[in-house]
């Protein structure tokens, strides 16, 4: 069909299609604007503040004071997220194993799968209130561990569903081969299925860690506040980067706001490193399994 054969209705159809395509490209550009603005601003405000001193010193006792760092919040974040991971990942992997290897389409499994999906939608602030009512009120104990419990509850359903999906990709032939060699079900899962799925599970777990590290609301009622490093998991208040940023964001003092920008950049870097690790793990094993 040559251009001269196009009727005016054809032309308006082409125009409409072109406009629609234009809107799709525009959508992407619109989304870029806040990303560039936010990351750019955090880099600009945060980069000038971060130094070795800033990363290691205790929090300032007075908000007005520019004298201090965010050391305790970094330690707190790593401690709280680390312990949450130690709880959520083993349990989540077991749950995923149940869903894919035992449950299948049985009613219990269908219900558990559905509830895990629903649980990923529970707002993190509700998870914080839950841990407050069931742990903090009961044991009169605001501590890093209470924060870990809240983050662990948020991570659990994500790890369960990721594990299930990764296990589903393990070829049935590998299981059959193990059974043919006399392997029992538990042996087959432990020695064949899970090892084959490790990279996928690891990658999923790293993404869950990245998300948990940025969560503020679950920690609001769980960990209290302190200006000094506390490495005791069960005893005494603690502090984490997201919590510190939230607290200082409403402060009228420039020094406190600067601290928040520095902490925000640190937090973004931590989250980004875990996200990148997840991608590298996925990509690396991708290459190996193709070779």
């Amino acid at each position: 069909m040559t251009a001269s054969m196009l009727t005016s209705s054809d032309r308006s159809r082409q125009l409409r299609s072109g406009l629609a395509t234009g809107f799709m490209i525009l959508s992407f550009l619109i989304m870029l604007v806040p990303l560039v603005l936010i990351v750019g601003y955090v880099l600009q405000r945060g980069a000038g503040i971060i130094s070795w001193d800033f990363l290691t010193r205790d929090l300032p006792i007075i908000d007005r004071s520019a004298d201090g760092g965010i050391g305790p919040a970094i330690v707190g974040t790593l401690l709280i997220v680390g312990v949450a991971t130690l709880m959520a990942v083993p349990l989540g992997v077991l749950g995923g194993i149940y869903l894919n290897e035992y449950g299948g389409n049985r009613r219990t499994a269908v219900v558990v799968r559905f509830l895990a999906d629903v649980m990923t939608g529970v707002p993190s602030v509700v998870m914080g209130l839950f841990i407050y009512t069931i742990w903090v009120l009961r044991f009169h104990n605001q501590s890093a561990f209470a924060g870990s419990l809240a983050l662990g509850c948020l991570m659990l359903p994500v790890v369960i569903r990721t594990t299930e999906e990764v296990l589903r990709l393990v070829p049935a032939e590998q299981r059959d081969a193990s059974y043919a060699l006399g392997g029992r079900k538990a042996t087959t899962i432990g020695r064949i299925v899970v090892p084959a799925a490790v990279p996928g599970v690891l990658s999923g777990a790293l993404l869950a860690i990245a998300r948990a590290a940025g969560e503020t609301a679950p920690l609001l009622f769980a960990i209290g506040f302190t200006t000094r490093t506390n490495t005791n998991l069960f005893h005494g208040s603690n502090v984490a980067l997201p919590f510190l940023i939230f607290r200082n964001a409403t402060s009228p003092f420039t020094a406190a706001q600067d601290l928040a920008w520095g902490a925000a950049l640190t937090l973004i870097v931590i989250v980004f490193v875990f996200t990148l690790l997840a991608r590298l793990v996925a990509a690396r094993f991708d290459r190996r399994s193709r070779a």
Partner: protein
Amino acid sequence: MSIDIAPPPTPEKLGEGRAPTGRTTDRVFRYVALGAGLLVFVILALIAWSTTKEAWPAFKFQGLSFVWSKTWDPAHMKFGALALIYGTVVSSVIALALGVPVSLGIALFVTEVAPDWVRRPVIYVVDLLATIPSVVYGLWGILVFAPAVQGFYQNVADFFSGVPVFGLLFSGNPVVGRSIMTAGVILAIMIVPIVTSIARVVFATVPSEQKEAAYGLGATRWEMIRGAVLPHSRSGVVAGVMIGLGRALGETIAVALVIGSSAQITARLFSSGDSMAAVIANQFGEAAGIHRSALIGLGVALFVLTLLVNVFARWIVSRSAHEVATGAVR
């Protein structure tokens, strides 16, 4: 995320595990795995029981007016959540109105328009938006975006003043930067990655035969999308939007920082407002007694609301062919 599989171990390794494993190990392992799965049910049940129990004194104190009264005034022991529910719902609706078209646009761009070498970077960049912690959105919102946007709101309000409906919606009492609209805009940015990734997965399941058939009949790209892609994806997209809505309703920290913290029911979107999650975050620290109990009650209300939205979303997914879409939700 791409999920990949390592090569199977060499056969010699198999024999090692055979001897010590017996039927008991098998059974024990099975029950341990089942227990881990059931933990999800236990936790959800505990959330419902434990929070409701602590909220009970406030529910008893306030009665049904907890959801019908619009006066939230802790100093005078008045705990009506209607204005907070209003703020939660309106800011989330703004987020959907702004965020969903952009998300669908990006998802269509990725699946139907972009060449291969553009596709991957675009997906990465959208995912990058999802890695920014909500508190960073809040920090940027309160210190940069809200002060900067106030003048723009004022111009918009002046422009629409006198116009029916729009004149009311785009106004304030007074016009402020930290407002319901600002909360909606920030929420819109925050839900774009999740809605996009679900929509992308759903669009990708449209059989290429159907798309080619549409092109074969002489359809333009847009006609192909309207005739083949969208009808096939409707339920999956609705589920994605619902999951985005669930996120927006429950988002706490970013909203707590930018919504302005004044509980009121107003159609003027440039006014300050408040949301359930934001009030919990902002007031819990200095709350005690019935006040604290009422805040936990807000949590219960939020839990029920997001539960309904999510159950609805999963229900749509489970009865459509888009099982695959659940994989995009994390």
